[in-house]
């Protein structure tokens, strides 16, 4: 962790909200990305990102300064997303099923993505959350297997297996869509 980041966290621990605002500014894109990768819905991801930063501030005394801050804030975000998905499954199954289609309603946003990414996103949406979550944390969040295992409270071997299966599934889906290697 950089010295100035440590200083910002120390100031935040002393109740300096502006210091926390600076932390939010630095991490908001990646936290939003993690939430969007897991939830798929931009509105839900926005809520999750906001909630994650507020909860992290409230529980900042449980953060260990010798650990990576990104791992910690991603863990909070992933847990919030997991709870959100669980609530949705319990109370609004239809909403859960239609989750993938909600994020396609913004035509301008669609134009920004290239076709391969668009297909990959659709493929990711087809994965079960239990496969999508470790995949996003590993390849977008750049987290180690052991960190993902700890935050999902699963053995590291299970995480590796899920990621392997998720990638195999993605390959199959992409091949069906005709997406091939650039190489």
């Amino acid at each position, binding site marked *: 962790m950089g010295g100035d980041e440590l200083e910002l966290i120390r100031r935040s621990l002393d109740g300096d909200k502006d210091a926390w*605002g600076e932390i939010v500014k630095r991490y908001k894109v990646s936290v939003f990305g993690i939430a969007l990768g897991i939830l798929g819905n931009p509105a839900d991801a926005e809520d999750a990102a906001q909630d994650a930063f507020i909860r992290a501030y409230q529980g900042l005394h449980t953060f260990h300064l010798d650990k990576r801050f990104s791992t910690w804030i991603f863990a909070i975000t992933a847990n919030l997303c997991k709870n959100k998905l669980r609530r949705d499954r319990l109370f609004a199954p239809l909403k859960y099923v239609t989750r993938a289609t909600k994020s396609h309603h913004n035509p*301008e946003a*669609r134009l920004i993505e290239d076709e391969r990414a668009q297909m990959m996103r659709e493929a990711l949406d087809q994965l079960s959350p239990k496969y999508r979550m470790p995949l996003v944390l590993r390849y977008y969040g750049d987290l180690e297997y052991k960190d993902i295992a700890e935050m999902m*409270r699963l053995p590291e071997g299970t995480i590796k297996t899920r990621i392997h299966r998720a990638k195999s599934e993605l390959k199959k889906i992409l091949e069906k869509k005709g997406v091939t290697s650039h190489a």
Partner: protein
Amino acid sequence: MHEHELEQLIKETVAQHAAAYQDRITDLEYRVVDALPDRPMVVEQQPVWPMRLALATAAILLFLGGFWLGGTLSDGPPCADPYVLCLVYPNAKSVSLVGQLTQWERHPMNGPDRNGIWWIRLPRDLEPGRYEYGFMVDEYHWVHDPRAREFVHTFDNKINSVLIWPPSQGDAP
């Protein structure tokens, strides 16, 4: 598609998707700061886990554990030694100590003995302080130490045990 290319595409896809909606988080830091509690944070020195439940659980486990420990300490793990952490978990295949004591890395514990006791010795040069820890049973069950004097409820709904070092006289480690 090659493995590396697939992984790169996953990363780019999530990043592009987030970028496409980044207008949603343009002012996120301001919204977060506005929503923060007015008062500076208070460091919780006391366990926030319902104390009565924690004490009741600890009492029951100590009572049950007493049967396991009773009569065996003389030739079993030295659980009465303040430098030794013990956990009675006969059915576990593995138990590790995880916490600030171990830089949150897993340190396998010794055991089990014939009574199902797992144990680990703390370093002799342990600095005075307050250390959060727990036991990882069978790789992923997070278990608190029923003999701890304090507990902390973490942000992700785990219970961490707290070791206060050096222990005051009569305290369990």
